[in-house]
């Protein structure tokens, strides 16, 4: 019978599980995000560098194709920690831009018209709501960060053989962990900015500010005062040091890798606390 001819009938059938309910928000958000042309364009654009990397890996494993090139160039074609560090840096910048473009409709619409109280009057906790929103960005950013990174690593392992894999397995793990850490940090920073700043343009400027302006400010502080601790307030530099550590690269002088891990943990905790404070079903004015 057509829906419009039916009366209301109270649903008393089976209900879905907790995981299924948790994935409802990401499912619809991915659908909405992927309807934006700019997001799709950025996703496509972010694939060019990984494609170049695949070509690079192929060439480095087929040096017979480079007979006319000198030995210096052949040495340049090394697949090592530096190769993956550059890959992660390039894709990391794309990740920031993609976060800004795709995430603008994640939290702000829920806050602006009070939809949060409808979410939280259902079996969905605040932690699950944040996790659901993080999953949206995690899914999207994974497509341009660790997934191509691990694919490139697998390709290289396949071409170079078991011995290369046994010596460099930490690179694959480093790409995965480092990318996940970066995704977590930029997602939390972005969600916090959108939760607190109502005007989209201002929120987006703030996100850029955290990554680029703060980077410059921290460096100026370090140079002028002759210290290294200002780097702990700079997410990009902190993550860069951690990536260096994960990929086995000896970094330039600066804060220790352990200190950077602590800084990331503290940043994450503070951002989660701030988000939790803002994402309440009702405002309490006491």
């Amino acid at each position, binding site marked *: 019978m057509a*829906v419009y001819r039916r009366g209301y*009938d109270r649903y*008393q059938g089976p209900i879905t599980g907790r995981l299924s309910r948790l994935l409802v928000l990401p499912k619809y958000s991915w659908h909405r995000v992927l309807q934006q042309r700019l997001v799709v364009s950025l996703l496509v654009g972010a694939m060019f560098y990984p494609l170049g990397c695949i070509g690079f890996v192929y060439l480095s494993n087929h040096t017979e194709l480079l007979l006319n090139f000198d030995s210096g160039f052949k040495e340049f074609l090394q697949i090592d920690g530096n190769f993956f560090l550059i890959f992660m840096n390039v894709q990391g910048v794309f990740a920031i831009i993609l976060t800004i473009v795709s995430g603008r409709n994640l939290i702000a619409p829920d806050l602006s*018209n*009070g939809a949060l*109280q409808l979410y939280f009057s259902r079996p*969905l906790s605040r932690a699950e709501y944040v996790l659901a929103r993080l999953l949206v960005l995690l899914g999207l950013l994974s497509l341009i960060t660790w997934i191509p990174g691990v694919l490139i690593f697998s390709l290289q392992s396949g071409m170079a053989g078991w011995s290369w894999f046994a010596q460099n397995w930490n690179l694959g793990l480093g790409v995965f962990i480092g990318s996940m850490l970066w995704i977590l940090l930029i997602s939390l920073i972005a969600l916090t900015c959108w939760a607190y700043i109502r005007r989209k343009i201002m929120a987006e400027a703030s996100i850029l500010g955290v990554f680029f302006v703060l980077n410059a400010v921290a460096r100026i502080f370090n140079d002028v005062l002759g210290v290294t601790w200002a780097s702990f307030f700079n997410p990009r530099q902190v993550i860069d040091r951690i990536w260096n550590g994960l990929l086995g690269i000896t970094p330039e002088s600066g804060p220790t890798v352990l200190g950077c891990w602590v800084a990331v943990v503290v940043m994450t905790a503070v951002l989660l606390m701030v988000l939790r404070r803002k994402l*309440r079903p009702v405002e309490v004015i006491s």
Partner: protein
Amino acid sequence: MHTTPIIELQDLRVRLGRREILQGISCRLGASGTGKAIGLLGPNGAGKSTLILTLLGFHKISAGSARVLGLDCLSHSREIKARIGYMPENEAFIADMTAVHFLRIMGELSGLPHRIALEKAHEVLFHVGLGEARYRTLGTYSLGMKQMAKLAQSILHGPELLILDEPTNGLDPAARLRMLKLIREMKEEHNMNVVLCSHLLRDVEEVCDEVIILNEGRLVHQANLEEERHTNRRFIELEVTGDDGELADALQEQGAEGVNEGGGRWRIVFPPGMELDVLWQLVARQNLAIHHLTHRRDSLEEIFLKAVGHLERSEKSTPELPEKETIDGRL
């Protein structure tokens, strides 16, 4: 037979900041699965919305306990939320989303399988009168349509308990009647329990079977409206023409009390069990002609005003009123 109350509060206290908004409320309301409606009344700032939000787990309980459908609000918040539907007082929607899409998400979040959620979204939107507008974005809806959309999302998943916070706010008379009809239908035809929070006494009177009245964070009156109506039916106002000199004695013989106010006007109090037929017969035997007869009953407005006024008087006369009297406050 043991029945689980819909709401059970035990010395419930809720503090927001430095203010104690709910100051020790105790009551047992309704019986789950009976399709009864509970009215939550009180002047502005009485703590009605705070009570609702506490039941939903949005506010922390500072002392005492609250149970909904037999489940503790603190430890079983998730189970409670799975069994209730909530319509908030304020705006609650995503402006650039179509109604059907929004409801589908809400349905799936409540645990409906995705295909059923879509089907239910269409079905409920037609049922509340938004069928033609279901593909419009919610931001373009009028206030009345938004209210209906809020009701739709609250009943979509077929909850056992429907909590409605000021559902008729901002509705024109026709829309108000439609909203009340839908609420009555939910409890009478679909056996849902309803908690209706409103400052509009007529709405509560039309829909609810039980009512509690809050004032300044305390429960000042709890009444079963059905019983009140039945009780008040015993008060009769009568106006007759003819010689009514012996009517008082005749009434007394039947156990009723009659007060002649002059000019043929009488106020009569029936004893329990006495029906109107007896009065008709008495009047006929006295050869009196009835001009006017009313079953005088206290309206909810009178009950409400008495309840709120009662507390004020009690506080002025006996500052340290026994707690039982303040809480139960039966008039």
